[in-house]
């Protein structure tokens, strides 16, 4: 035992040698293996490729090169902790974490708050983190789970012609912190709008959902809303098509709406809907840059076969928001080598305008918004996209839909106050 320890000690200490001190470090806690890989790979590729493109085209951000050390978490919290600890001190220190996992996010919220490193959980993680007074280090713009739940309900109301009175809606969710997030909001909305909510949990990893869909077949809810991730999405869509559930009445959150989720179900998935917080397709100049500076040079991350898919675009979007925050931070700090604390200031002062999006070659890709200490959560807008199995494409079927921010603001306030009380935090904006 002792010998092993010493051997391992010698091994690792010899290896903790990072890149040059001057790099901007954006660790990528990705997962390319395990039951969630189908969704983890495209996001990780997009995240990596955007930064590679910035390095190749502009020489980094503000003249400082970007380093993206990748660490495989397998969507597992223990490995996530190991990844966090092993990447946080690389170079001058990590600037931002985007773990793409609600479980790891819950793990990291107290850790990043203690270590002073910003955490950006774009459309996932702890919803009440949008209260920047209580969660100074955590950001979840441009939209969060409770927005998602509210947006899905607003879309259904539109379809039903203004009222959900007497309707029944089933929530099929991943039985974890991730899947449980929208329940609170949906319960409030169900009381408010008068629909009946049925909660149907699916245990990790979600490979087996026969009994859940049997229940849906028996109860025949008018709509099914899904909070799924990884292999659970594919199985659920397949099962829904097996019981002939009307696909246009089946709506997934933005994490249940990628090509990899619907293609396995073939023609049966036709008409399936999902939320999306950004536009889709490769009709943006930024994709030409990625093609020219990354793909054509053979620098594409992973197998390079995910470019243009929904989750790849989301990875690009996440990387773009991080890069823009870093640029804002550089402007505020007045120098290129920003620290994590300066990065946080940059994120809090982040202002995404339509003009800036156009400059970035992403006009109309996402909404314009400003981040402030009071609101770390962005505007809370999303599109509804629908799958066409014949052409194998997603298309946006609505404009940006707004969520019920009044209700969500109230719930966030409650939850943030509870967190502040539990952890002896005095909420403050300065």
């Amino acid at each position: 035992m002792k010998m092993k320890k010493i051997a391992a000690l010698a091994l690792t200490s010899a290896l903790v040698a990072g890149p040059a001190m001057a790099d901007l470090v954006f660790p990528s806690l990705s997962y390319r293996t395990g039951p969630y890989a189908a969704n983890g790979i495209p996001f990780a590729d997009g995240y990596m490729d955007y930064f590679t493109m910035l390095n190749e085209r502009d020489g980094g951000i503000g003249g400082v090169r970007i380093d993206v050390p990748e660490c495989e978490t397998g969507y597992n919290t223990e490995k996530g902790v190991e990844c966090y600890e092993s990447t946080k001190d690389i170079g001058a220190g990590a600037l931002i974490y985007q773990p793409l996992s609600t479980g790891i996010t819950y793990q990291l919220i107290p850790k990043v708050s203690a270590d002073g490193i910003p955490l950006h959980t774009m459309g996932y993680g702890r919803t009440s983190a949008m209260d920047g007074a209580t969660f100074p280090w955590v950001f979840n713009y441009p939209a969060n789970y409770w927005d998602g739940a509210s947006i899905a309900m607003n879309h259904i109301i539109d379809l039903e012609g203004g009222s959900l009175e007497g309707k029944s809606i089933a929530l099929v969710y991943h039985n974890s912190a991730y899947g449980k997030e929208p329940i609170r909001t949906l319960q409030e909305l169900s009381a408010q709008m008068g629909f009946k909510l049925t909660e149907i949990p699916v245990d990790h990893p979600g490979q087996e959902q026969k009994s859940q869909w049997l229940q849906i077949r028996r109860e025949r809810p008018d709509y099914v809303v899904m909070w799924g991730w990884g292999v659970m999405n594919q199985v659920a869509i397949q099962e829904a098509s097996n019981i002939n559930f009307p696909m246009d009445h089946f709506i997934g959150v933005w994490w249940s709406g990628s090509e990899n989720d619907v293609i396995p179900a073939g023609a049966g998935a036709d008409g399936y809907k999902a939320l999306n917080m950004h536009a889709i397709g490769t009709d943006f100049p930024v994709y030409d840059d990625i093609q020219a500076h990354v793909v054509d040079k053979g620098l594409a991350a992973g197998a390079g076969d995910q470019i243009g898919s929904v989750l790849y675009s989301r990875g690009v979007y996440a990387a773009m928001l991080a890069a823009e925050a870093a640029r804002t931070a550089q402007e505020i700090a007045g120098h290129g080598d920003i620290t994590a604390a300066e990065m946080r200031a940059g994120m809090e002062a982040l202002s995404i305008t339509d003009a800036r999006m156009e400059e970035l070659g992403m006009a109309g890709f996402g909404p314009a918004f400003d981040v402030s200490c009071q609101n770390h959560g962005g505007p809370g807008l999303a599109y509804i996209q629908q799958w066409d199995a014949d052409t194998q494409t997603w298309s946006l079927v609505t404009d940006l839909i707004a969520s019920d921010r009044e209700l969500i603001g109230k719930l966030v306030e409650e939850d943030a106050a509870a967190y502040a009380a539990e952890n002896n935090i005095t909420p403050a904006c300065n």
Partner: protein
Amino acid sequence: MFYREAGDFKTSYGADNQTFPIKFDRYRYYAVLAIAYLVIPFIINDYWANALFVPFLIYAIAAIGLNILVGYGGQVSLGTGGFMAVGAYAAYKLMTAFPDVSIMIHVILAGGVTAIVGVLFGLPSLRIKGFYLAVATLAAQFFLVWLFNKVPWFYNYSASGQINAPERTVFGVLVTGPNTEAWAKYLICLVFVTAAGIIARNLTRGSVGRKWMAIRDMDIAAEIIGVNPLTAKLSAFAVSSFFIGVSGALFFAVYLGAVEVGEAFGINKSFLVLFMVIIGGLGSIFGSFAGAAFLVLLPVALKIIGVDVLGWPTDIVSHLQLVIVGALIVIFLIAEPHGLAQLWRVAKEKLRLWPFPY
């Protein structure tokens, strides 16, 4: 040359009965303890604590617990993850209900709660054994995880169903929560590991342990010579669950800080601890440590070699890890079914004869 009794004279029964009768062995044990207590806390950093030492120590307690049940008691269990969850949730409920009581006491009480639950699920062992018992404990695994997911009282009605460890101190030093220093985390786990090791070692070489081993080797014969199977089996379940509960409590409170039951204490955890016990060596306290060290350090070492040294893609390294760990388990089962502990024993024998083997 090493490991000789020669010249090591015992003048009392106590001296003759001690855990490490050979002088060299004893000094080595003291040296390990001295390094663990007096050197490592001063050089440890966050990475070493969170990636290696703390998980190693916590899994070592779990492996000792499971080894008592499987290795000494001969009762197969696949419910380790569930019992660790009991320890974690008991610790959480106690920590939040009685914030003024020391965390040390909460961890021990959490072990006690787990012992009670373990005895309950150990009751079937009086009638069934082998594979059938394994299936019964598997039911415990699934039932307990389901229970902690289903009943909101266990997670204090939090919206996400997660439990979060509040900050607690021992002698004024933070040991749980995000602001804990690496050495404090390490030391609190080390104290529990040391205590667990000493208690387990002395239990297993006393009358209680002999009864367990008698039951393990042949329960009917044991019953005929006067071992009560009821008390022997249930005490094995109780003691084993106690240690597993303590490790679950530390796993949640000290190591992770926030836990989601299905993910942290799923069936994979049961198998992981079982592999530790099998690779380390059934029926050996040292084996529990060796197995835990092996399965905690190996993935990290492989990752460092693959990603940081050789620069391979993370997914390939991650897949290779599965292949290598799996292959090693198979090789161990074939080449050395008694585990790392047996290798250690053989090495000691060799050293004893060295340099004049006959």
